[in-house]
């Protein structure tokens, strides 16, 4: 694998990771405030749908006289507002009416699928409504000239840069500002928050709706920076993967970003391997090796960070590390027979990874303590 290939793959990984990160940030604001949101999928779908409909209709009604980028921005705003509205529904159901939050999220998922499919069937498909294209790539001057890192990080469309900014900002805000402290207290121990005069209900409403806006961006980015049009069920489970990303990233924005890159990488690889110019067996053994190395590193970091005698023991960590190292060397020494894995299996990669991550690595991850419990004043 040469450098050029890896750079292209990593760039694609970031692009594929972006909707997941937006989704995970939505989940982060929800769960940090104590609300379970399995409706991220539906919110993303609603965001994608309305972003497309908004931008396409603005383009259509202005008859192409408007700069398409302006149509796209308008579409983005409409998409974000719509999913914030959907999140508002989740907030009313789960916070005000105290409906089981998982049920409320499921309602949202079903509703989003039903409505978007219906409108796509009766309006978008028959009228052959076409989009107005996608946001252009902005190369950041100077920074994009840095070898390797430059093209991976600084040759993207605007919503990716927005995402970088959001991740850094939220990482700071959640852990270092009064807003973040209050948000976390509401999700961990709402009685305490209430006892010091923090409005639990208001905090939850605000963050669920803000989260909805972020999920909307996650949906919109798939339309506005990728395919340029709406396809039925186009989020295809990314809202759920975003939840896995959130848990894997331990409810922190930077953690979620790192975790999403892993999933994005798996997806990008699945896409890339379909070109057929790389030996699949070689690629899969490389993934295995890298996964083992990454896992051992993750365990090592967790162990050092927690300081308590928790987590995997050093022999286990070292063993996994050695397995990774050996397979890395072996993969580059052996000549693999040419075997083609069917495309469908390559497409499975992110989902398989989700299952592995959720069952294995993060079994013991503990989220905010009050997640899923409606708040009742005593």
């Amino acid at each position, binding site marked *: 694998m040469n450098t050029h290939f890896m750079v292209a793959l990593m760039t694609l990984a970031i692009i594929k990771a972006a909707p997941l990160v937006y989704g995970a940030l939505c989940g982060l604001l929800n769960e940090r405030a104590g609300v379970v949101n399995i409706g991220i999928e539906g919110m993303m779908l609603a965001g994608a749908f309305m972003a497309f409909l908004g931008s396409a209709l603005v383009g259509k009604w202005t008859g192409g006289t408007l700069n398409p980028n302006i149509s796209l921005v308008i579409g983005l705003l409409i998409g974000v507002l719509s999913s914030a509205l959907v999140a508002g529904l989740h907030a009313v159901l789960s916070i005000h009416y105290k409906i089981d939050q998982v049920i409320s999220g499921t309602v949202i998922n079903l509703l989003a699928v039903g409505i978007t499919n219906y409108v796509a069937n009766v309006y978008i498909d028959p009228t052959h409504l076409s989009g107005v294209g996608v946001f252009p790539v902005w190369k950041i001057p100077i920074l994009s000239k840095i070898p390797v890192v430059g093209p991976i990080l600084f040759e993207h469309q605007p919503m990716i840069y927005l995402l970088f900014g959001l991740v850094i900002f939220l990482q700071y*805000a959640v852990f*270092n*500002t*009064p*807003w973040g*402290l*209050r948000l*976390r*207290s509401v999700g*961990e*121990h709402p*009685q*305490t*928050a209430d*006892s*010091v*005069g*923090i409005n639990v209900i208001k905090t939850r409403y605000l963050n669920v709706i803000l989260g909805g806006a972020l999920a909307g961006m996650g949906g919109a980015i798939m339309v506005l920076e990728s395919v340029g049009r709406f396809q039925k069920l186009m989020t295809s489970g990314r809202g759920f993967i975003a939840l896995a990303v959130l848990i894997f990233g331990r409810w922190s924005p930077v953690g979620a970003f790192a975790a999403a890159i892993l999933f994005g990488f798996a997806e990008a690889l699945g896409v890339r391997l379909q070109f057929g110019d790389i030996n699949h067996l070689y690629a899969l053994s490389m993934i295995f090796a890298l996964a083992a190395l990454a896992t051992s590193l993750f365990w090592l970091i967790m162990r050092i960070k927690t300081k308590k*005698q928790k987590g995997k023991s050093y022999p286990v960590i070292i063993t996994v590390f050695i397995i990774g190292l050996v397979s890395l060397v072996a993969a580059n020494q052996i000549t693999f027979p040419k075997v083609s894995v069917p495309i469908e299996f390559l497409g499975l990669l992110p989902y398989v990874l989700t299952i592995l991550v959720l069952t294995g690595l993060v079994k013991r991850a503990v989220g905010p*303590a009050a997640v899923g419990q409606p708040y009742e004043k*005593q």
Partner: protein
Amino acid sequence: MKNNNQPILSLNNISKSFGSLLANDSIQFDLFPQEVQVLLGENGAGKSTLMKILYGQYQADNGEILINEKPVIIRDPNDALRFGIGMVHQHFMLVPVMTVTENLMLGDEKTKGKWFGKLARLDRETVRKEILALGEKYGLQVNPDALVEDLSVGEAQRVEILKVLYKGADIIILDEPTAVLTPQETEELFAIMRSLIQQGKSIIFITHKLKEVLSVADRITVLRNGKVVGHTTPSESSMEELAVLMVGREVLLTAEKGLSHPDGVVLQINDLCVKAKNGMIVVKDFNLQLRAGEIYGIAGVQGNGQSELIEALTGLHPVFSGKLLINGRDLTNASPRVVTLAGTAHVPEDRQKHGLVLGFSVATNLILQEYYRPPFSNGWLIFPEKIEENARKKIAEFDIRTPSPDSMVSNLSGGNQQKVIVAREFSRPINLLVINQPTRGLDVGSIEFIHKRIIEARDAGVAILLVSAELDEILSLSDRIGVMYAGELVAEIDANLADREQLGLYMTGSKHQVSQREKIT
């Protein structure tokens, strides 16, 4: 009493009703500067309602609140804090995953710079220094960087008090602060209270424990059924008088029991070792012989292996090594049901977690050990009318105060919940009773009742293993006393020869009796 002329706080004619229940009836209450005023009353006497009115969580139907002789209206806890009233809740109002510093900042955060409002950077360093200074001033040492979840109960309570002080309170309400503390931690709390008084604070101390009333109070107000039934001071009163005031009748404060007549060995524990979930040995080479008709009390500071010992004994926790024999039968690592069927009754430490199914009715909780057997079941079906009949009988016999047998057990008071467990466990044919913290958090009346039942069981020939963090309980019930320290039985004393000081020394590990092995042989 230092400055007796002008009350810092007065509650005049406060009344509050919930539906038909008059929780507070024309209550008159004065707090003077630099005093500890105890608000004494049983559960349900209206103490908490009164304090919630003062703290702004409830609004009184009638009456007025005066602070420094000026009438004030307190709408919510923030108002209360503004008037210098702070409350240390019985259930701590702390976020476990945050540091002490973060917990103190919460709600009124200091930030660096004022430009970004709620998105400015938290100023942890300044608050940290303020906490250390406050701790220094009042003798409340805590590590400001520790996570609250890593603190002991006593330390967490210190953080709660610090929080109230940090927010500038002059009147501090302590709501049953000793309910969760060990005797040592209680002593430490009293020392802290004295230092607070010296520094000019005033304290309202809510409790139903008579003993501590006399040692900490400057003045005492007793509530019963929502009414003030007496104002007194420790020098003018005694525990017996206070008990009568509080309960409304004569109460036995120490259990009356005759001589024990120990019979054959019921429980034999040989070299028992138990490992905790984290792999640490928490019970070490434990040996014990318990005879029918005697009460063996295990004293010790909580967390010295008592809980694990009891759990291993009742089949709830695996035994690492050693042997457990009940009536000569080897029941090491037997399942809880086998242990139960061998004639063991267990009143667990945490009644809500391990003693009851909170979401079930009183009637169902009463048959948890026997639901699968006649007369309650034929193996296929259960018979609700039998369960109901049994419940009515037990409710009458054990004086369980519940609206009906079908009421959820979670709606009962702590004392009545404990009576449900006692009714279930004591009325089966048993020969071994394992009982852990039988009266924690209960009021005087319930304690009296449960102690009486324990002694009756002993006199009926049951072997009783009693674990309690209350040294008084151990001393008044036991025939023999063992002290556990760091997982080991460090002393074994005949109850008639035991004294508090000596037991205290064993409990803190500063003294060690002859080794177990020598004594048994």
